[in-house]
């Protein structure tokens, strides 16, 4: 599990053993494989990229090629203990609808995303006058897959509007955890554990 990205390591640590999970945007299945191997989790995945799907299936994982914006509608309510969306929210066409599905399909949902209000990004934008290109968001304005940037405060107010409860939150600077204080300004990444009220 040491090879897991820091936000995935948090999710891997927090998921209950023997749970049933849906990893939306599972990539080549690293998190799923780790959860299966260390926590006996029944893991299912969805991924847009065909090569990643083939790699995940070759790992023995149950992964379907699909698009979070389209294919989540077909999963029944409460069919998973956890629905997981890691670093994918900002790439969806309708993050609001994807989040609605996530807390519908999973009894709980993990969502992780890069925080667009972190001070380096604010700084680059304010003084550079250009779309920020940072280590965690390395793409340029025209080729970025991240089409719906979100800040921690945006996300919280969205949850509030939708009556989605926060049951856990973790913040990262690089790969180091940091506390909640001034997270919107200081954290590069956020991980939330959610439940629909």
């Amino acid at each position, binding site marked *: 599990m040491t090879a897991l990205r820091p936000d995935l390591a948090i999710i891997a640590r927090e998921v209950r053993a023997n749970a049933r999970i849906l990893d939306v945007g599972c990539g080549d299945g690293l998190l799923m494989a780790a959860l299966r191997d260390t926590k006996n989790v029944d893991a*299912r995945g969805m991924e847009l990229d*065909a*090569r990643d*799907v*083939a790699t*995940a*299936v*070759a*790992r*023995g*994982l*149950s*992964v*379907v*090629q*699909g698009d979070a914006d389209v*294919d989540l509608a*077909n*999963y*029944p309510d409460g*069919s998973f203990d956890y629905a997981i969306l890691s670093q994918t929210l900002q790439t969806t066409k309708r993050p609001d609808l994807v989040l609605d599905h996530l807390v519908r399909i999973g009894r709980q949902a993990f969502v992780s995303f890069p925080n667009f209000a972190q001070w380096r990004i604010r700084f680059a934008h304010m003084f550079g006058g250009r779309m920020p290109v940072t280590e965690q968001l390395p793409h340029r304005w025209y080729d970025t897959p991240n089409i719906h940037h979100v800040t921690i405060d945006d996300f919280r107010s969205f949850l509030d509007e939708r009556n989605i409860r926060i049951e856990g939150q973790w913040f990262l600077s690089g790969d180091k955890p940091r506390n909640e204080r001034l997270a919107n300004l200081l954290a590069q990444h956020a991980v939330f554990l959610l439940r629909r009220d």
Partner: protein
Amino acid sequence: MVLLRVSVVSRETADMAMYMDGDTRFGLDKKAQLLGPVKLDSGAEFAPVEFAYETYGTLNPDKSNAILICHALTGDQYVASKHPLTGKAGWWTRMVGPDKPIDPARHCIISINVMGSCMGSSGPASLDPATSAPYAMSFPVITIADMVRAQALLLDHLGIEVLEAVVGGSMGGMQALSWAALYPERVRSAVVIASTARHSAQNIAFHEVGRQAIMADPRWNNGAYYGREAPVAGLAVARMAAHITYLSEAGLTEKFGRRLQNRDAKSFGFDADFQVESYLRYQGLSFVDRFDANSYLYITRAMDYFDLAEPHDGVLAKAFAGTKTRFCLISFDSDWLYPTAESRCIVHALNAAGAAASFVELSSPFGHDAFLLDAPEMNRTVDGFLRAGESR
């Protein structure tokens, strides 16, 4: 059309097939006649049932390594051994064989000529024991489920209760799905490639063109042509029309374009001026040497009747309710016969049923036929999927 059975088995396939000591039920070019009956969807019963089949590899002591390969419309049991009529290598040697995803060193591989076909299993060209004449059109109209029920009889005969996997492309995929729906406790994994859970109006329409071509051939004679000249002209046209649906527009353009066949200018006649015409004519003509026209009618009918959701109030997920079978679905982006959307429908139903399902759409320029050709990603996916099932 009389089919001469020539048992020619190449040395390497004979080496590949390891016979179980003294058990004559296993091996190459096997035949079995079982009392049955097979209860058909039409309400009729069919008995006795003849089977032509092959096995490669050895059944392990706990009988947990059996893989059934289901063939497509015009396929047969010669998955990985030489075809007795054409002399060509098996039709799926890219998937089945030493160091392939389905490997006789690891698996006991079974392939059965489907009921209704013409390579030795009961079909319209078989002799009706009641009359000692070919069944012809008195052969019952069958369905994909009927084919599967018949296969289950043969597996009982082979002493195989549970299959590690059922694997099939195209109509073979329909059988794999039907196996999982009809006998969920007998199927641990199902691999469904370039297939569908129901025949669309377009699928039925193309098949109807083929059937009408056969029936419009005066030699068809309402199916009673055995011992005489067969309706080869009609069957060849049926094959030509169907063959187009197995390819893609881009594939045809790349292979033939508008190039002329062995000539510098158009003939201003109706000879095969274009390479694509010549190719299709060849496909049609070579097909009639190995296939029976009535079998073509019966099997296309079975495919047209296929709608796995139909017996479940139109809800496909109900066909898989509570299933423990693992599924792997693969589609190809240039396949317009059974396009990705059809596989996706199946995946949605499997998700709704809570089944363990994997699905990937692979890229290929070759249309529906892609599953029969070199497709390294397909092999990698199937290999990983099967191995994961074996390690459980």
